[in-house]
């Protein structure tokens, strides 16, 4: 590896207190174990939130965290780890007993559904036992942005449940938007509302299923955007990144509407065989292109310009350039 590529891939990390990293790793392991032993608790959101927090804390390059406990290094006590593990065991037992009391509970906007959702998020609660309250206050002050990013991941990452809940309403908006655009090129196109709206054309009829909702594009965007945020964390304009995240989600939904419109237009202009055989792969190509186009537009606005480093000190002759010398 050349010095240039080493510099390009440099990781100004590992400044985080080991105890904080250990606490997050413990949380990740315990949450995964909870979900393994009681599948009712399964949700990828707590895993994503912990992973995002861990990676961002690890990537943090400044020394703000050095002064969390003054001269005393931050440590995890065995008593607190035991308490943490006991809390997880208690949580598992409670969930199993609730499952016996409330059989057949599934997700949804009902009391039982909310209880189930709360139990899935509650797997993160025992982490609070790993440090005293005073230390948590100091950690919250130092790692405010990392914590906020983790919360964002917890509630918005891979939003299958949100999309499933909104689908009856959103499918109508998507169907109508697609019809409005595609009708400019396929005048005979008619709209048939329903949970899965159908657009009937002269050569090809298209039914918009849940899998066409754009959820795949959103998931792709979230994973790639998270990758960028983790890599750029130390020079990222956090407020702009937050705005760009939500604008990007919206952009992927718009891109999805455009994708379906293009499939309908092509399918009704002699390419129905291609559309039927290749629409899934074509969708991924389209979503990749949409993400890269969006990133190309916003990237430079998200990054704090780099200040030139004086790693190679200037020579005296470089500094004192006499105008008469040349």
């Amino acid at each position: 590896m050349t010095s240039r590529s080493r510099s390009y891939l440099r990781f100004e990390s590992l400044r985080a207190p080991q105890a904080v990293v250990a606490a997050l790793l413990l949380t990740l392991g315990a949450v995964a174990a909870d979900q393994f032993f009681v599948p009712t608790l399964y949700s990828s959101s707590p895993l994503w939130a912990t992973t995002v927090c861990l990676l961002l804390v690890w990537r943090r390059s400044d020394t703000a965290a050095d002064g969390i406990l003054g001269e005393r290094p931050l440590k995890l006590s065995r008593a607190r780890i035991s308490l943490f593990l006991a809390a997880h065991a208690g949580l598992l037992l409670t969930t199993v007993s609730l499952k016996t009391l409330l059989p057949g509970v599934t997700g949804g906007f009902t009391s039982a559904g909310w209880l189930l959702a709360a139990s899935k998020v509650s797997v993160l609660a025992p982490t609070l036992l790993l440090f005293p309250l005073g230390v948590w206050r100091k950690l919250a002050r130092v790692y405010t942005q990392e914590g906020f990013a983790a919360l964002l991941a917890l509630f918005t990452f891979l939003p299958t449940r949100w999309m499933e809940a909104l689908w009856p309403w959103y499918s109508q908006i998507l169907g109508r938007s697609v019809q409005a655009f595609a009708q400019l090129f396929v005048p005979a196109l008619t709209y048939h509302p329903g949970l899965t709206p159908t657009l009937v054309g002269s050569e090809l009829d298209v039914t918009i299923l849940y899998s066409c909702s754009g959820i795949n594009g959103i998931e792709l965007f979230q994973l790639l955007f998270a990758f960028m945020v983790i890599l750029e964390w130390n020079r990222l304009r956090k407020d702009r990144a937050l705005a760009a995240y939500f604008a990007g989600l919206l952009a992927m939904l718009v891109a999805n509407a455009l994708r379906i419109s293009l499939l309908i237009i092509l399918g009704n202009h002699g390419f129905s065989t291609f559309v039927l055989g290749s629409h899934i792969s074509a969708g991924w190509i389209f979503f990749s292109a949409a993400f890269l186009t969006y990133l190309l537009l916003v990237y430079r606005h998200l990054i704090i310009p780099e200040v030139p480093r004086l790693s190679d000190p200037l020579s005296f002759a470089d500094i004192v350039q006499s105008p008469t010398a040349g």
Partner: protein
Amino acid sequence: MKKLPLFVALLTFLILTPCLASADDHEKHPKHHHINATEVSVLGFAAAIIVGGTGYLLLRRRKHA
């Protein structure tokens, strides 16, 4: 932009995925390679992640060069 050929190769792979996944009749063309919709989706997702990630890294390199 030394990694451009790699990026182009990845894009080509992604674009060729529909050919791998052609929904031909298996009895008519038994020698054709067939994969189902779920496999196409997984393959497409993986390829899209690689293409998107590589595109971002190239952009990052260009901006910080």
